[in-house]
Structure formats: structure tokens, C-alpha cells
């Protein structure tokens, strides 16, 4: 086992060639002349190697290429609906780029902690076939009937035998630079990428392996198989989702002036993530590559490889401002003494809670310097000096730091060209996969039946990728909705063990030498065999082997066991396997108990056999004590009413309804206004294109009204909601009176609007002062007269204490409208007063640049401290005064049209919805999702989802992706038909309950109510956390599976031999 503490950078870094063409082919970047490197040769290699491999055929419903967060989300969304997914990934583990990150903005959630459970879920899902180390070689056919060829490389390790024990890596003599660790560390030729890899099966890197056979000799289960063949698999599916992700710009050719690859203390942001990661090369500490010392000062340079047509890609990479802010503030939090600065052009804190996150970083002492540094040089002590022009003072300055981090851009994968050919889809001018239409079909590729998710079609943050992946799942389903769903295997009938004396069987696993090498498994088994209620105890070589599963089933039968304990590794990774074995033997899965004597014992006390053996005995005894008190738990099933209620008939509500309609699910579309259309009704055109809003909305309304699955209810509002996931009932006020509706799930698409600016910026004082929406209404109506001077004030009412967020769409809207005015009246002067120009992602930056350069719109930057003032004199003349923070002048602009880009807020109906659906909202009445990163469309309340600007303002493409994503989420329970509820739930002992309501208040899921003075648990809402149980003074509410007596029995078991 390599001792990780030896793996710090200095030793490794020096002999890591940065331009190692074996591991990463240096991109032949040929953007300028629009030529792509010829990549047929790669495909040819794949095809040729395939000839020498084993052939087999597979059938499924959807093929997903790429198992990063997007691919995994899409796979789960489809598999949960009962369709079969074949999920392939070219690397040896799933997880993609997200698992490399330390934390995620703006919540600082641990990245691996949120992705690992999804990875495990994917690997255990009965409807998902996972093929890692596999690539797609061909795709024939058409939507509904594709035949793909997938080439799966051999890992030379038998996945059924490998236990993930890691005995093989210490003996492997070959060191390989770890791409997973961004070349900051090494791995062996036999490896897993990271400890939480899924599947936990080692892989032999064939190219690097010297064939010495050391690993084979030490592998106890005999999992190494040099003869294992690669496979050429023919896959028949109905639709395809491409979620192959992105690469990061490597600043070795372009942006060479920042010294990457030349100066050791210049690293990329992803490398910095690996340093911060607790399972990275420095175990979570920022260290200087030159000497492994703690850096006293760190600077970030933004937009390395992005926002530049000449030296990179023209688009904004969308996530870099926030990840740099995250990295800087984590560093500041860990070590407040570090001098931390970020060089930026515009700080694009555009998303939900981003601005607050940025403000917090500033408060913590992160210094933001507005400049694009021209060059850097290295000093004798290996520190780095950055030369830049301060845009405020216009002086050329220098700043010296001990470490420089380059915020490199998200760029298209080099393989996109080859993949595009294989898949028969197009790439755009940057090399991302081309979407069918950014304004109407942002999820579709240019080939029917092939959908796109995540960053393979442009930079995106995690929640947007996840939302889009769900959207792709909805789309992929619509091609196969008429197929039969996969049938679940019926388990044998469950034996009724109630009232029986506990008869416990204990299986103590050697795990080869991994447990037995450090403690005496036989002694543990003999000891536990003497404990009360233990009928059978044995030690076995590998508890997880298929042989042992058979053995466990037989022993349950022969010995009449009614409870089983496996003392082995961890319930997190293997609990499900043994629970399945229980079920196959006719026992309730909750009668199984795990004792973790590997991760929690043998591996962590490997120097004292006696102590480790004693501890193992104690751990198994504790489990036995609890086991005797275990009860079979019932998992209730509830049927689901097969229809969805959508609240809000704007763009997002309609798109969600149509996506559901494509999946043949009945929908009620509720709209408070007399007509469908929402906010788009008031707009003239839509950013980042000049498409007319009516050209978008009118065909949508037509499609909605023609769908046989959609019932439109205009002029109607929600009065009340009762029930829970699967079985909701709504009372609705319609023009025709009160109506009751039953539905299984709901989508909130209540939208947003501009805040009321009356009394500020002269709004209300003059007809010449209006908001952007009012301007568009006027243009739409054709009543805008030619103005001489137009001044647009961005961020009106935004990013101030009362509404601390950025409105996300204002910059884009102002640019679009400025262009529109210039096109109507080329002689008019148009000014945009802005704080930061936040046009993020693909297309937006390009649109912005075109307008500024092509239309001669003048932009003036102001600061929060010196806000523009709008004054109306007695004659009705309007004057805007603004302090230009870049040039330092104060400008007085006589304007005959002032357009305020007003701050936005969620629809006022949100307050009622919060109450009715038990859902939360944050600043600006924007609803709060279950998890900012990985559950962006769900609420903590099951069965309720949301999309569009009810979540946060967003552009058309993001809104559509979210709406189709929400439709996918809402369709899952409907397509399942019945829901199996959690077995570990709370249970009220009525005779002791005083009805004090403490549990009702404490429950994070509003699952408890008081009825006739007693608490009552709604098991459909209960998630089984046990907070209520710990809160009840009387012990009147108990968490099944973790009852007070069960935990007490373990406490006693830990302290005493006899209980």
C-alpha cells in the first residue's frame, strides 16, 4: 500500500513532464482557421482492435455515453422510470470531473460526498447496465431503433472476484502519472482512480504494465486475468444521450505568458482543486509545488483561455469566477493569514446565491483586482510576479505571490470530432456538440433520437448540467415510451418471523488477508458463537463471493436462522448485496446487520493483532445485541395517480407540459392569467438571439392546446393542496367556480417579475423613465419614438442589502435591447451603465462583443458605492449622472429615454405555494431546491418539482432544459406507478404520546402532524432520520431499525461482555 503522505508534490512534480503526449495528446488547436485535427485514425484504431475481441449483443432502451454527473443523472432518471439504460464511460470509474473537485460553490458542499451516493446508486440500479472502460464505435439506425457498437477494453481484472482490497498496488513496480490527480501525483499500472471509485474494481493500465505478474501473485481472490479479452458489443437501443463532458484548457501554447509548465508554482485551478481535495496528493492542503511549503500568498488569474478570440475561445467559460472565488475563500477560511487575490475582468456572480457568495469572499479578505495581467515572471525564490494594469488607476503595477493559479476555461473535448462522426451529429464552431436550436431545442443534437446533456455542448455549472440531464432523460423517453418497461424480479415470499426467538447466524469474513491478516477471524467467530441467540457462527474467506451468498441462503434454511450478521467490510458498499441475499432466502432485509471489522478495525489497527481481535469481537457482539432486537420492517407501497399538476402557464410551464405530453402523461396546466404565455407575452425579442418572443410563444401555445394529454386551466388559481407524493388533491378556483383535482406529482413554474422601482432612479417621475420590460412592450406595440440619447441603468435595485442577489438576465436583456434600439434608430446614442457585464456561457459573450463592436453602444462601469443618479427637472428634462469607475470621470448624460434594468423577484403567488406545498423560498421569493448542486429541480418535499424563473431568472435555453428536466423528475413516480416507501420510518407509541408537538416542529420533512392530541407520522413523507426520536422526551416516537432499545443494546454491548 503506498503511504499517501509520501505522495506530496515536490518529489513527484519534478519528474512529471507537463507535456506528456502519452497521457494527454496536446491539442492541435486550429480554431483560427476553423479546421479540426483529422481524427479518423483514432476511430480506425478502435475499430481494428475490436476485431480481436469477444463479441456479444445487448439490448436496452437508452444508451448513455459518458457517466459523469450528467450521464449518471440521466441514467437514474430513465432507469427509475422502468426503462433499461446502458451507461458507458471511457474511464475505469464513473463520476467524471465532478469527483475531482474538492467542494462546490456556492454552498461549499463536499463534491465527492454528494456524487458518491449517486455513483453507488447507479451501480446498484437493476435497470442500469454499466460498462466502464468502454467507448462507442458506431451508431446506426434512427430514433426508436438504433444499433450501436460499443468497444469495452479489458481491465485484466475479474470484476466478480476483485474485492477492492488494494493488495496489488504496493507490489506494482510501475509508476504512472495520474491524470485524475492532474499530473500532480502518480499511480501504479494497476490502479483505481480514487478510493470511492465505482465499480471498485482495479484496472491494469495495459500500456504501462510491464507484465511482471506481481499483482497476480499477491491477489488472494485470483482476480487478475491477463487473458481476459476486450469486448465488441452490439447494443440495440431506442435513443441515445451524449454526456461526454468537457476538457480544461491547458495553457502551454496559448496563454504561455502566464508561465504554466515553465514555473513550478504556476498551476491550474483544477490542480488546485486536487490539492484542496482530502484524497488528493497533499491530502487537502495547498502546497507550493516548488518546495512543498505552505504558500503565504496566492493569486488567481481569470479567463485563461476564454473570452478571447485570439488566445483561446471566444465564449465565457461560465464557472471560473465562482470556482476561483470558492478556492480563494476556502484557502482564506483554512488559513486567514494567506494573502489571496483574484485578477478578473467581470466578476460573473450571476447564479442563485452567487453574488452573496462573492460578497462573503470579499468580506473574508479575498482581494479582487480588476485587470487582465499581461505577463508573469519567476523570481529567484520561485515566487511569481504578475504584471498588470490597474484599470481603476490605469497604472502598470506588479504583484508578487508564492503561488499562481490559472482559472482555465472549459473547452470542448478533443474527442468531440471523432465522436460526432461516430454519432452522426454536428459540432459547432468551437468544437462543442451543436444543439438543434438554442432557442427552442437546446437538448436535441442535430440527429433525431440523439440528445445532449451537460458540458459537451457548452460550459455549464453542475446544477445546470443536472437539470439538462434530466431534460435529456425526458426527451430520450419520448422515443421509447411505447416499449414495455423492465419487469422487476419477484422475490420469494417473506417468512413471518414475528414472535420467533431470535436465531442469529454470523459470517465473519477473512477478506483474504485483509481482515484475517490483522485479526483472528476464527477466534471472533468462535467467540460470537457463544453469545446469546447466536445459533450459527463461522469464518469464511470472502463474504461477498457468489459461493458465500449461496452458503448464507443454505444456512438460513438448514439452521432456521431468522437474523444474519456479516462481519466484513462496510454496509455502505456491501450492505445492499447481503440484504438482497436475505430477500432471496425469504427473510426481511431489515433483519440483516453489518459489523464493520475491515475499514473500522483490521485496516486501521493493523499493528496490534490482539487489540484488533478484541475490538472485532466487541463490534460483532454489539451487532449481535442489536440483531436480537431487530424486527422485520414493512415497506409500504402507495399507488400514484397518473397525472401532473403544473402551476404556471408561462414558457417553463408549457415546456414542462409538452415534455410530459411527449411521455404520454396527463397534465393539468394552471395559469392565473386569462391567457397562457407568462412573462414572454410582455417581451419583444429574446437574448442571446433576436428571435421574436411571439415566434417562440405562439407555436408553443398551439402545441399545448392541441395536445390530448394537456388540460389547460386559465384564469385559475390554487386554493388548497392536500396529500403527498402520489396522491395529491388540489382545490382550484376557476372562472367556472371551485374545482377539485387529483394528481400524483406537481411542478411549480410560477415565474418572476421586475421589482417595483417607484421612487428610485426617477421611476414614476417621468414618462421617459421605464423598465426594460416596459421598453419592450413599447417596441412591440410600435410606440417607441426615436430617442436622441438612451441611458440604460443596469442592476437597478440589485445587489443591495434588501435584495443581495444578481438578477442573472439583466445584462443580456440590456445588451439585446440596446442593439434593438440601435437597429431601429442608428443615430441614437445608447449608453449602458453597468457594474459587471455578466454575459456568461456560450453565445452570450459573443453576442455582447458583436453589439459593442458592431453597434457602437457605449458602456460605462459604475460601482455600488457610487450609483448613477437620475434627476428630472421642472421642465421634464432627464439627466443621468454617473461616475465612470474605469476612467474616473463623472459623466452627465441628458437622456430622453432612461431604461432601468430592474432587479427581479419571484412571483407573489409563491407565498401561498410555500404554505400549500411545504416548500421553502429564499431571498427574492425564489424557491429553494432540495440540493443546490445535485437536486436542482426537486424540493425536499417529495413529489413536488420546479423549473424556470421560479427557481431563479434564467435565459431561454436554461429554462427549457430545466422545464424538460422537471418534467422528467415529475414523471418518475408516475411511470413507476407505485412507490415503495422507506422501511426505516418513525412510529408513534400513541399511549405514551402527550401530543406536545416537539417532533412535529423538529421534523425536517414536515412528515409529522398532530391529530386528536397525538403525533401521527405520514410514512410517505418520513425519510427515517430519527431526529424526532432523539427529540421526544418520553420516547413516544421511535425510529424503526434504530429504536432506543436497539441503540441502548449496542451501548451496553460496547461496554460489557454480558448484556
Amino acid at each position: 500500500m503506498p503511504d499517501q503522505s509520501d505522495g506530496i508534490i515536490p518529489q513527484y512534480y519534478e519528474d512529471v513532464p507537463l507535456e506528456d503526449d502519452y497521457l494527454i495528446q496536446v491539442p492541435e488547436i486550429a480554431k483560427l482557421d476553423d479546421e479540426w485535427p483529422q481524427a479518423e485514425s483514432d476511430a480506425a484504431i478502435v475499430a481494428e482492435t475490436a476485431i480481436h475481441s469477444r463479441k456479444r449483443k445487448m439490448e436496452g432502451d437508452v444508451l448513455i455515453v459518458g457517466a459523469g454527473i450528467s450521464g449518471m443523472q440521466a441514467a437514474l432518471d430513465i432507469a427509475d422510470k422502468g426503462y433499461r439504460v446502458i451507461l458507458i464511460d471511457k474511464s475505469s470509474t464513473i463520476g467524471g470531473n465532478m469527483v475531482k473537485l474538492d467542494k462546490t460553490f456556492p454552498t461549499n458542499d463536499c463534491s465527492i460526498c454528494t456524487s458518491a451516493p449517486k455513483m453507488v446508486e447507479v451501480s446498484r440500479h437493476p435497470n442500469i447496465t454499466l460498462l466502464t472502460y468502454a467507448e462507442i464505435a458506431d451508431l446506426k439506425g434512427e430514433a426508436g431503433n438504433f444499433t450501436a457498437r460499443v468497444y469495452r477494453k479489458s481491465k485484466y481484472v475479474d470484476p466478480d472476484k476483485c474485492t477492492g482490497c488494494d493488495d496489488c498496488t504496493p507490489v506494482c513496480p510501475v509508476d504512472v502519472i495520474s491524470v485524475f490527480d492532474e499530473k500532480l501525483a502518480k499511480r501504479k499500472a494497476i490502479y483505481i482512480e480514487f478510493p470511492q471509485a465505482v465499480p471498485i474494481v482495479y484496472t491494469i493500465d495495459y500500456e504501462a504494465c510491464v507484465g511482471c505478474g506481481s499483482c497476480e501473485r499477491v491477489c488472494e481472490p485470483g482476480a487478475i486475468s491477463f487473458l481476459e479479452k476486450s469486448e465488441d458489443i452490439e447494443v440495440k437501443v431506442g435513443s441515445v444521450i451524449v454526456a461526454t463532458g468537457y476538457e480544461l484548457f491547458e495553457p502551454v501554447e496559448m496563454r504561455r505568458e502566464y508561465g504554466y509548465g515553465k514555473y513550478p508554482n504556476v498551476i491550474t485551478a483544477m490542480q488546485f482543486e486536487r490539492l484542496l481535495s482530502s484524497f488528493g496528493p497533499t491530502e487537502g492542503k495547498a502546497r507550493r509545488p516548488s518546495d512543498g511549503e505552505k504558500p503565504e500568498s496566492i493569486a488567481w488569474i481569470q479567463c485563461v483561455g476564454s473570452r478571447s478570440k485570439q488566445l483561446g475561445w471566444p465564449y465565457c467559460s461560465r464557472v471560473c469566477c465562482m470556482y476561483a472565488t470558492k478556492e480563494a475563500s476556502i484557502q482564506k477560511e483554512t488559513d486567514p493569514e494567506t494573502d489571496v487575490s483574484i485578477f478578473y475582468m467581470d466578476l460573473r456572480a450571476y447564479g442563485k446565491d452567487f453574488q452573496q457568495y462573492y460578497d462573503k469572499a470579499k468580506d473574508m479578505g479575498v482581494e479582487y483586482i480588476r485587470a487582465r495581467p499581461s505577463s508573469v515572471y519567476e523570481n529567484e525564490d520561485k515566487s511569481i510576479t504578475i504584471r498588470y494594469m490597474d484599470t481603476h488607476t490605469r497604472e502598470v503595477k506588479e504583484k508578487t505571490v508564492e503561488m499562481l493559479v490559472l482559472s482555465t476555461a472549459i473547452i470542448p473535448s478533443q474527442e468531440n470530432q471523432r465522436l460526432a462522426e461516430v454519432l452522426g451529429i454536428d459540432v459547432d464552431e468551437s468544437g462543442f456538440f451543436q444543439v438543434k436550436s438554442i432557442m427552442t431545442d437546446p437538448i436535441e443534437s442535430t440527429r433525431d433520437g440523439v440528445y445532449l446533456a451537460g458540458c459537451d455542448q457548452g460550459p455549464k455549472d453542475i446544477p445546470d448540467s443536472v437539470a439538462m440531464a434530466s431534460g435529456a432523460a425526458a426527451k430520450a423517453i419520448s422515443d421509447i415510451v411505447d416499449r414495455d418497461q423492465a419487469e422487476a424480479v419477484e422475490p420469494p415470499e417473506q417468512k413471518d418471523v414475528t414472535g420467533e426467538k431470535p436465531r442469529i447466524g454470523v459470517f465473519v469474513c477473512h477478506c483474504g488477508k485483509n481482515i484475517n491478516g490483522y485479526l483472528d477471524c476464527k477466534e471472533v467467530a468462535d467467540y460470537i458463537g457463544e453469545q446469546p441467540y447466536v445459533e450459527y457462527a463461522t469464518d469464511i474467506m470472502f463474504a461477498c463471493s457468489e459461493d458465500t451468498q449461496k452458503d448464507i441462503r443454505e444456512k438460513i434454511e438448514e439452521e432456521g436462522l431468522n437474523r444474519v450478521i456479516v462481519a466484513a467490510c462496510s454496509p455502505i458498499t456491501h450492505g445492499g448485496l447481503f440484504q438482497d441475499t436475505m430477500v432471496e432466502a425469504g427473510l426481511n432485509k431489515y433483519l440483516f446487520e453489518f459489523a464493520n471489522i475491515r475499514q473500522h478495525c483490521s485496516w486501521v489497527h493493523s499493528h496490534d493483532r490482539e487489540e484488533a481481535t478484541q475490538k472485532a469481537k466487541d463490534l460483532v457482539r454489539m451487532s449481535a445485541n442489536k440483531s436480537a432486537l431487530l424486527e422485520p420492517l414493512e415497506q409500504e407501497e402507495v399507488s400514484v395517480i397518473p397525472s401532473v399538476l403544473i402551476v404556471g402557464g408561462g414558457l417553463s410551464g408549457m415546456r414542462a407540459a409538452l415534455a410530459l405530453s411527449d411521455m404520454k402523461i396527463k397534465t393539468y396546466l394552471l395559469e392565473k392569467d386569462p391567457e397562457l404565455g407568462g412573462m414572454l407575452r410582455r417581451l419583444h425579442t429574446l437574448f442571446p438571439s433576436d428571435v421574436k418572443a411571439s415566434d417562440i410563444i405562439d407555436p408553443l401555445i398551439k402545441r399545448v392546446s392541441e395536445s390530448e394529454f394537456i388540460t389547460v386551466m386559465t384564469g385559475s388559481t390554487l386554493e388548497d393542496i392536500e396529500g403527498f407524493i402520489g396522491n395529491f388533491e388540489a382545490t382550484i378556483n376557476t372562472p367556472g367556480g371551485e374545482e377539485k383535482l387529483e394528481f400524483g406529482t406537481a411542478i411549480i413554474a410560477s415565474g418572476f417579475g421586475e421589482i417595483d422601482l417607484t421612487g428610485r432612479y426617477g421611476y414614476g417621475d417621468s414618462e421617459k423613465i421605464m423598465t426594460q420590460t416596459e421598453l419592450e412592450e413599447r417596441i412591440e406595440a410600435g410606440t417607441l419614438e426615436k430617442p436622441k440619447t438612451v441611458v440604460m441603468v443596469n442592476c437597478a435595485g440589485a445587489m443591495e442589502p434588501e435584495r443581495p442577489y444578481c438578477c442573472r438576465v439583466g445584462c443580456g436583456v440590456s445588451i439585446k435591447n440596446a442593439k434593438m434600439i440601435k437597429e431601429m434608430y442608428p443615430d441614437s446614442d445608447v449608453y449602458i451603465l453597468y457594474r459587471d457585464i455578466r454575459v456568461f456561457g456560450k453565445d452570450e459573450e459573443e453576442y455582447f462583443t458583436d453589439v459593442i463592436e458592431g453597434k457602437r453602444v457605449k458602456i460605462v462601469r459604475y460601482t455600488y458605492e457610487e450609483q448613477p443618479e437620475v434627476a428630472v427637472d421642472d421642465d421634464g428634462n432627464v439627466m443621468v449622472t454617473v461616475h465612470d469607475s474605469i476612467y474616473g470621470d463623472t459623466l452627465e448624460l441628458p437622456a430622453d429615454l432612461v431604461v432601468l434594468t430592474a432587479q427581479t423577484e419571484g412571483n407573489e403567488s409563491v407565498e401561498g405555494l410555500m404554505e400549500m406545498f411545504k416548500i421553502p423560498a429564499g431571498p427574492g421569493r425564489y424557491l429553494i431546491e432540495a440540493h443546490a448542486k445535485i437536486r436542482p429541480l426537486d424540493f425536499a418535499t417529495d413529489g413536488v418539482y420546479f423549473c424556470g424563473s421560479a427557481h431563479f431568472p434564467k435565459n431561454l435555453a436554461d429554462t427549457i432544459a430545466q422545464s424538460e428536466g422537471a418534467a422528467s423528475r415529475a414523471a418518475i413516480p408516475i411511470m413507476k406507478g407505485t412507490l415503495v416507501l422507506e422501511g426505516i420510518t418513525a412510529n408513534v407509541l400513541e399511549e405514551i404520546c402527550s401530543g406536545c408537538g416537539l417532533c412535529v416542529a423538529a421534523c425536517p420533512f414536515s412528515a409529522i402532524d398532530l391529530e386528536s392530541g397525538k403525533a401521527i407520522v405520514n410514512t410517505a413523507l418520513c425519510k427515517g432520520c430519527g431526529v424526532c426520536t432523539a427529540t421526544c422526551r418520553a420516547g413516544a416516537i421511535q425510529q424503526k431499525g434504530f429504536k432506543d432499545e436497539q441503540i441502548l443494546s449496542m451501548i451496553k454491548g460496547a461496554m460489557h461482555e454480558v448484556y
Partner: protein
Amino acid sequence: MADDAKNDFEPKILGFLCNWCSYTGADLAGTSRLQYPSNIRIIKVMCSGRVNPQFILKAFQEGADGVLVSGCHPGDCHYIKGNYHARRKLTLLHDLMDHMGIDPGRFQLSWVSASEGHKFAEVVTKFTEQVRELGPQTKMAGGGGQ
């Protein structure tokens, strides 16, 4: 107590770990083969919010020399706010132990994420040493089923 006796003393430590973060973090400590004192006995709970202060007092009464509770970092709770509930209750319990003169150093709450194998090993090592330093817990022990 003489120093020698202290050094020979092997404290009995009980650990309550939440399923989603700290238990997985402890798994990672194992996978990474980090070594820490073997005194701790782990009880898995679904959420740190399940830990009733009575369990801790009960453990002391049953003879535990130290009790560790560990859950997800603030904001990371699988159940949204279970760890915040744990924090409130257990902070007050810690205060109360201090007030009663029952070495609060014997009870520790920590946040260990699923990726913090190192932190888990450090917390257990530090806590074991701290409890070892405090010597056998005699104030509440001797009750219960002993």
C-alpha cells in the same frame, strides 16, 4: 493519578457516526490504511440528529470513558438539518456536563465528511489521547447494568 498509570490506561470510547458522512469518512480512513487507537467502538446511526443526549449519559453510566458523536458538516446533512438539531442538543449537554463538573472533555462532537478519512483518524486519535489524559471516568460509571 501517576503518569505511568495514565499511560497504561486504555479508555473505553464509544462513537456515534452518521451513515452518510462520518461513517463513510471512517470507511475512508480504513481504505487509506490510516492507523488510529483501537479504543473506539462505533455505532452507526442514520443521522447525528438521532443521537439523544441520553445515549451519551447512558454510555457514561455504563462505564464509557469518552463519547464521540460525528456527523456531516453544517449544510451537508442528508436530512437537511439533522446535524443542526444535534448541534443544539449536544452543545447544551456539553455545557451541562461542564457545569456539573463532569469533564466535558469526555464528550466530543465533530463534523467529518465522507471524504475526510484523515480528519476522522485525527479526531479519534486526538480524542483518545484527551480521554486517556483525563483518566478513568468514575463520576457517572458504575450504574446501569453493571
